[in-house]
């Protein structure tokens, strides 16, 4: 019941307004470009998996406006993001922050790749030590002709 209700609330809030509007945009193109970049990395908290820049939700619109107000007030990009994070938490960052809770996330990809490389390395070593030489026996004339014939339609 609680879940249905929450979803109901969310649906109501997610009624369309529109992604970034011309009226919200700043006149200073440099500042506006910074605002766009920041809002593309801030997650809309009511619509899930959209940035506030893409989102149609009212709250996303108000956050876009807030981002621009902070920029006009002279905040750095970092300060604007920190401002929003201090109220909504790391959840609003589409790029997960680099901190103990996400070490596993950021370190895992190189680790997985490294383990994969290692596994392949051991595969080759084990296969080679299995004893059979890879060196092919020289082909007989008849075999060579057959290879020539087949070479044209070798499947991938």
């Amino acid at each position: 019941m609680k879940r249905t209700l929450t979803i109901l609330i969310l649906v109501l809030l997610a009624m369309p307004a529109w992604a970034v509007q011309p009226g919200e945009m700043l006149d200073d193109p440099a500042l506006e470009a910074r605002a766009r970049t920041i809002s593309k990395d801030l997650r809309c908290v009511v619509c899930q998996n959209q940035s506030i820049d893409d989102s149609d939700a009212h709250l996303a619109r108000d956050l876009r406006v807030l981002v621009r107000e902070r920029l006009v007030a002279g905040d750095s990009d970092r300060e604007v993001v920190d401002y929003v994070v201090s109220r909504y938490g790391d959840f609003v960052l589409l790029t997960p922050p680099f901190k103990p809770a996400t070490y596993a996330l950021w370190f895992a990809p190189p680790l997985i790749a490294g383990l994969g490389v290692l596994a392949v390395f051991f595969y080759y070593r084990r296969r080679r030590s299995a004893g059979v030489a890879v060196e092919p026996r020289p082909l007989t004339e008849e075999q060579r002709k057959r290879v020539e014939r087949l070479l044209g339609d070798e499947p991938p």
Partner: protein
Amino acid sequence: MIVETGHFALVMALVVALVQATLPLIGAQRGNEAWMAMARPAAIAQMLFVSVSFGCLTYAYLTSDFSVLNVVNNSHSAKPLIYKISGVWGNHEGSMLLWVLILAVFGAAVAVFGANLPPTLKARVLGVQALVSVGFFLFVLFTSNPFERILPAPPDGHGLNPLLQDPGLAIHPPFLYLGYVGFSIAFSFAIAALIEGRVDAAWARWVRPWTLAAWMFLTAGIGLGSWWAYYELGWGGWWFWDPVENASFLPWLSGTALLHSAVVVEKRDTLKGWTVFLAIVTFSLSLLGAFLVRSGVLTSVHAFATDPARGVFILVLLLIVIGGSFALFAWRGPSLKASGLFLPVSREGSLLLNNLLLTTAAAVVLLGTLYPLFLDAIGGGKVSVGAPFFNAVFVPLMVPLLVAMAIGPLLPWKRGDLVAIFWRVQLVLGLTGAAVFLTWVFAADGPMFALLGMGLAAWLAVGTLFEIGERTRLFRASMAESGRRLRRVSRAAWGMTAAHFGVAVLVAGITASSAWTVESIQTMRPGETVQIAGYDFTFEGARDTRGPNYEAVTGTFTVTRDERPFTVLRPERRVYPVEGQQTTEAAIRSTFLGDLYAVIGEAEGADGAFVTRLYFNPLVPWIWAGLVIMCIGGVVSLSDRRHRVGAPSRRHRAQAVESPAAA
């Protein structure tokens, strides 16, 4: 009555599947041929019963039978015919019925086309396939019955989510499911092989076409989904690394790896355990996707309305199917003995590299998708893992893959010489350099990654064509000789060439659209003009229009280039009164170099001014073209007589079994 028939047919399908899941497996174990032979008729009967059931639900939709709860919730009498049909699978219950239908159709296809399969293998494959079916039949019947009645019947339905009322999305789920579920065949073959304790070249040859077919459908399904997002969501994005997108991309990644590792099994009689593992993983990832979308554990814009009871049921199903498979793998896997050898620099070596990169990519995407869930489960707080993370970890894995993709097909089997290859591909390198230079000249303002991306695309495209040239000894032998060799190139080889070339086109499209999209958002009064990428968009105004079941505001833009009329764009913003929702319909005009893309927003003030969003999306048509070429490659390869669905000619089969290394 029809509805009860559908329900009854589904129960009958379950009964038949139970028989198919037990007798043939026991028969194969005991050598009882009569019991093994039960598999074929049972698979066909199961398919027929599910078809009847699916037909009945479709009938209920077509006739707008509002005594059926599922129809009430997802249809409306005023809906166009095509969306009455697509409404059948536009919801959880109906889509599950489609899922079991496809599962049964694939099973029946193996029963019918698998005449050449050894009887025990065939009995086991169909038995395993039926085991999976049983699980899903129970799921549908106990938690997601689409035939539930509602009394008294309401006068009309609630309608279908307008976002789903779209031709692209109407056919997207069937393709996606053909892909997901198609991998169940490779899975069943893998489990059957583990039971038999035997994986050989013939086995790989039977698995490949089924995997290829599923891969093709999944490619098409993902492509359709992206295409839909591109024109429907109204800002020109087509891939968001959303959990549900990832759920469909994961089996694609491992399925692609499987497609390539099966080649090594067929040619070199090695990587057997690995290939069986990939077959299990690929279908497991399909099942995991179903769990993620339907259980509500992750938030996504695409998720179905969720129900924890269903989540628990699917999780138990996952535990049995995946857990059971991996347990069997742990037990029987070590007994699979390899014989063939190859060196790292060889065709097989490049296929192994492909597998390393694709499975690493799959693991990384899986981790990113599930990480928020993991962290929350251990009380570590809420985080989001969005597109920037996936791009950062995925792209570096794709770069070496694309580099190797052009080289791999040029390498000889067993052992190759990288230095010699390097000297052979000077032409390819030269043309790649030229492409990078041209990119730099024409689009110097783009980011650096664009040069890399376009370079890789050129490298792969030229390399793929070069490989055909090498195969036919073009310019080295006489034209007649080259022509003769060209005709002898097998369809399987052509399929590979097309698929790889398609990837090159796709990469160019992805790179260009990420690097050089031009966007302009503004309020326009009628008569005003905005210039984008050399095109002048003049807003002619907007008016109210009406569709079959919606009302719309339609804007008109006339587009000119160098003062000459080029095209007229008519984007819409629709309101569906029954469902109470809005959608945007972008107007798109594709050119060779990119899409002109226009969206109309809300009215501003009283003088007919509207918010408008105009884009030039460079090379986006190449993305769709690349995907189409990849699918065509799949079709061409499937049409190869040696791949023809599980039935290689006797001569070829005999060869494959007796001397796999010489094939």
